[in-house]
């Protein structure tokens, strides 16, 4: 087997050196009856070519985003990632390294984590950021738990504009922990009354902007009301590129900002791995979950970086930890940092403008199709259409025509009576031809 360096000769010599006769002598503690004599019932080893063929065949059964006009969003976005990013994250020294618990030989990882934290703090307008979460949704779950720790309350209010899957994640966790969750009704227009839900029993309100229907939300009044009642505002985003163009949650008073970083540097990957961004104010630092990288010096007084404040973490605190999180999204955060470095402020804001411009163009074009109504007053690069027919059927028909039109709201919120609504996203990858193809296909189907 190409991955196994030992030869049979090696094995014999080593067994002799150890002083046993067979390798199964080393498995003596396994109950005899349970030790397998034969390989399990799976195919035997395969050469590279054969593995490539099997997996390529599976791959070919899927329609990839780059191969068609593509408008699917709702929490993950098709962006162009520079070739430099994927090349660099595959470098052996990044790819095959471990969690940087040995900082003397892990400065590469540690320094990019420090850069990542700085970038995330700047982007969100917050004081501190951690070294990444699994993704935006699990980060939101952690944010709610953190808010409970900070406020010593156990009731979260979830906006009706929060991505329904994010709300599911929070609810699953809360139910298991016997915490309270109030989930507001789906808020297509972005006009729900969050303020009335806030009182002295509330630990946090969780508001997404742009919300799942695409609306931009003014967070300032919500933050103010929350603070009056001793509650925290958790601001969520699923499209990191939007922050290049819209006000940062930090500048609007958010206490915790959590979001999905996939858009920067990371592929769609059918849902993962992604990278959760998580930032807060310094005063809440000790309640923050996840790894943190901090600056220090070495014995020669050279600047260096280490994982720090790990007394919050499970491997030290065990059942008293702020979270059970161990692994983070190291390599995805590296991809984020490299892409963000390439963009810089100038590139990010231009990218955001292009996204917004493309979405505006698309909305105007689709609004003129009979049977289509654009519901949003405000949006960044995604908006909601009301169609003359159920959206899931329309999406399926359009897929047959080679256009991936978006996400039917009914897929996220089945049974909510929103079956004719369609979420449509547009990024820098969409061309005039793509937009025309979508409009034409909709015209045919509706």
């Amino acid at each position, binding site marked *: 087997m190409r991955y196994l360096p030992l030869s049979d000769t090696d094995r014999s010599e080593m067994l002799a050196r150890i002083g046993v006769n067979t390798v199964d002598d080393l498995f003596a503690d396994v109950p005899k009856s349970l030790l397998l004599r034969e390989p399990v019932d799976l195919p035997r080893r395969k050469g590279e070519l054969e593995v490539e063929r099997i997996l390529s065949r599976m791959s070919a059964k899927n329609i990839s985003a780059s191969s068609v006009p593509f408008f699917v969003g709702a929490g993950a976005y098709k962006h162009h990632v520079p070739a430099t990013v994927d090349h660099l994250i595959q470098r052996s020294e990044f790819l095959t390294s471990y969690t940087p618990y040995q900082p003397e030989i892990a400065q590469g990882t540690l320094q990019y984590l420090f850069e990542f934290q700085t970038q995330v703090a700047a982007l969100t307008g917050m004081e501190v950021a951690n070294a990444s979460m699994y993704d935006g949704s699990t980060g939101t779950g952690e944010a709610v738990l953190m808010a409970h720790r900070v406020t010593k309350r156990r009731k979260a209010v979830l906006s009706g504009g929060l991505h329904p899957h994010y709300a599911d994640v929070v609810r699953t966790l809360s139910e298991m922990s016997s915490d309270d969750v109030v989930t507001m009704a789906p808020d297509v227009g972005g006009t729900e009354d969050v303020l009335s839900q806030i009182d002295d029993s509330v630990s946090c309100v969780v508001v997404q902007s742009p919300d799942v229907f695409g609306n931009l939300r003014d967070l300032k009044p919500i933050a103010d009301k929350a603070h009056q009642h001793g509650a925290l505002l958790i601001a969520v985003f699923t499209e990191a590129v939007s922050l290049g163009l819209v006000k940062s949650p930090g500048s609007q008073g958010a206490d915790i900002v959590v979001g999905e970083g996939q858009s920067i540097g990371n592929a769609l990957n059918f849902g993962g791995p992604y990278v959760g961004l998580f930032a807060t104010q310094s005063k809440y630092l000790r309640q923050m979950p996840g790894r943190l990288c*901090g600056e220090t010096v070495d014995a020669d007084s050279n600047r260096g970086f280490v994982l720090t404040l790990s007394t919050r973490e499970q491997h030290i605190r065990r059942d008293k930890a702020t979270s059970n999180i161990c692994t983070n999204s190291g390599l995805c955060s590296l991809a984020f940092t490299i892409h963000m470095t390439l963009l810089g402020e100038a590139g990010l804001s231009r990218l955001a403008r292009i996204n917004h411009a493309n979405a505006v163009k698309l909305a105007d074009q689709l609004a003129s199709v009979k049977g289509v109504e654009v519901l949003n007053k405000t949006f960044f690069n995604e908006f909601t259409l009301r169609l003359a027919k159920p959206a899931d059927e329309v999406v399926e028909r359009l897929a047959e025509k080679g256009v991936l039109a978006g996400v039917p709201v009914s897929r996220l919120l089945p049974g909510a009576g929103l079956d004719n609504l369609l979420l449509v996203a547009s990024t820098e990858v969409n061309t005039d031809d793509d937009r025309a193809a979508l409009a034409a296909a909709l015209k045919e189907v509706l």
Partner: protein
Amino acid sequence: QIEPLLFEIGRYDTTGVDLDEPEDFKPRLGGLERKEAIGLPGLSEPETMRHYVRLSQQNYGIDTGLFPLGSCTMKHNARLNERMARLPGFSDVHPLQPVSTVQGALELMNELGRYLVTLTNMTAVALSPKAGAHGELCGMMAIKAAIEAKGEGKTRNVVLVPDSAHGTNPATAALIGFKVKPVPAREDGWVHVEDVKERLGPDVAAIMLTNPNTCGLFEPQVAEIAKAIHDAGAYFYCDGANFNAIVGKAKPGDLGVDAMHINLHKTFSTPHGGGGPGSGPVVLSERLAPFAPVPFVRVKDGSFELVEQNNEAGGTAAPFGRMTAFHGQMGMYVRALSYMLSHGSDGMKQASEDAVLNANYIRAGLADLMSLPFGNKPCMHEVLFDDAWLKDTGVTTLDVAKAMIDEGYHPMTMYFPLVVHGAMLIEPTESESKASLDLFVAMLRDLAMAAKNGDKERFTGAPYHAPRRRLDETRAARSPILKWTPPAPVAEAAE
């Protein structure tokens, strides 16, 4: 060499991405436009390349040397798997595309699940957990859901956790409201069935047991423990971090396990990437299978469908909810399946045997110089030393670890498990050749002799030859600097 931070070399008007400014248009941002600068300097592409290449050169990886981290299984990461994960049908598909357009992706998830279930002899698998600890959470949630379904939610709220367990175990149990009751360690490194039985009662929901355990030993009484647990109406959660020792040699389902997470990034070689992403699928016994979370893949009429809502599960299924927004770590699934297809059933068995053989070969090579807390008996895929052999040398486990760096090696896992004093846990994995192990043993023998001969300096000052000398972790924690801030402007010189 000290590489500056990107913030120290970047400029706010520089970009390494060429984009054309859009034509004039009327924004629809409703007055929420960003007015303030963000504070993100950029670099041109050549500068970016050099910055990160140079940073990488300060890292140690599997590809640069042996990585003897106990309980973390740093094995070879085949580049075939990287290539496969980047096939457009896997990397460039959206989790919310119509399922008719992602049949191959669902097929891959289904096939991965089949492999995991077959290797473990379990009934079902929950793929979506994002990492090992997330998998633990998933498994324990399934247990909690099962207990609640039986109406025992109020009464069964204790989880037994051996002292030798990973820190994630008690943290996970506590996170969802269980009380943690420790099971003490015995001198032989094993969990004894009588210690478990003593603590069992109608309040016990589960035991969380790592097997092979964190001392590198297979729990010989595991089947008896499982039986005791089941007899008491509780569940057996197995921490699968050490599955690498027994893949193809024994099936956790045969041992009575009800739930076990599998670290794809350990056992099935998806790259650690400096701390993630991982992937932690959980296999479930027949008793727990109904409680698997959404989403999951189901075969129906020859095609694959995705169950995304609790109420779509059907039959006896009662999913406890959703653990993450989408379907989990697809990129890791591809790599892990590529690993499994490449090895095959014969290769996976051989890999486990080689992993165990390699660990024992190290044990045999060092047993006379270093101390084995449980005696010189066979271990599984990792061998545990304590620091008794360092007595009176003035050298600590930490010092030995740092001295290894000067010899060109990554340190072993140290001070874990907690049940052994000054623990040094070494897992060479099956990826090392005999020649590599011989060099490694020779290096440690040399260090051991040096320590015993009083060459304390070589240890306490180590590392001397790394990108950095020993770092001041206390200082970092005392007044944390967690991001770069622009230097204060220098005051004009006084006139």
